[in-house]
């Protein structure tokens, strides 16, 4: 997904100004990868970066979801 799509999917709980800082850190930790996707010919503009979770990232997400289920405090 693109960063803006993630912002929209989070119903604005993620902010445009900080999403890329967060995504950058997640990529450094190996939870996600990204690749550049060229803009469509009719649109032009800078290529956009597409993010997707790694296997490690999916496992961490599953663990976090399970921990949230068991500990309401963790959910905060």
């Amino acid at each position, binding site marked *: 997904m*693109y*960063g*803006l799509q993630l912002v929209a999917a989070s119903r604005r709980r993620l*902010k*445009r*100004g*900080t999403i*890329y*800082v967060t995504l*950058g850190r997640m*990529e450094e930790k190996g939870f996600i990868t990204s690749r550049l996707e060229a*803009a469509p010919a*009719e*649109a*032009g*503009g*800078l*290529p*956009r*970066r597409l993010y997707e979770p790694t296997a490690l990232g999916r496992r961490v997400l599953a663990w976090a979801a399970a921990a949230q289920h068991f500990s309401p405090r963790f959910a905060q």
Partner: protein
Amino acid sequence: MTRPGTRLRAFAARVCSAATMERLIDPVIADLQAEHGEAVRAGRVWRSRWALMVGYVAFAKVFVLAGLFAPAWRNWTPDDRQGLKRMAWYTVAVTISVSVLVGLPGVLRVPDIVTFREINIGLLMLYLLPSTLALSVPAGLAIGTTLGISGHPRSRRLVIAILLIALAGSAASFANIAWLTPASNQLFREEVMGRPVEKGENELTLTELRSWELFSNPRSFLFHARLALTAAPLTFVVFGLVIATRRLTRTAAVISASAGLVCYTSGLISGAMFTATGVLPGPLAAWLPQLALIGTTILVSVFVSSNRVPITRTPA
């Protein structure tokens, strides 16, 4: 016609590291261009303007939060880091010294004048601090800049960072002069008198000074002098940068910067006198020292040879 965000990206590329550009700045600009382009192709004019506005705000947040600081700082050269640290230390030292020199003598005289009650000198100094900062911050920035980079290698990134600090200084100066100084001056007077006191001219906020019922030539001078002082951090830093990059010894550079400060302050004091006697209109008298400083900066940069200390290119 350039795409929206192209100039912003070019500006950010001068200051930010390549990694910051790739991971933070380019995605924000790409989003801005994609959203704006989509709205324009759909014929939605207001939607495209909204996309621009939101995109610019997001760029500003990313640039300030992450584009300028930690990631870029790691990629600064040792010379740049040392230059900025030197400038910061000298600025703080000179600011504190000038604040004490300007404020302390007056405060120490108060117990001799006010003999009918006990005076808290520390509290008085604290109340006087905002008004001393109006002049001590530009002084600190000018001499700090001169001492910090005179005779040392400097890069475009360092110069831009120093100018951004000066801009921030001007913004902080505006808040100080517009609201904080009038309020603290009033507290100072009430502490001295030991009771509530009616506000004098120096205790009026900028809005109060501007209101037409109070407007007179001396008050218009006061209003414009305060505005001119908010611009002083930026003009003093540019002056300091020009002086530091001339073929002068460090001592000569510091003396020149200090002379500029003394002339500016004398100009303001003289301007108040000329306004009171009707020789000059208030706004002109208030802005004349600022214009003279800008003119001097231009003349020095044109007619005094620059030194041969290399300007290093910002690493990619």
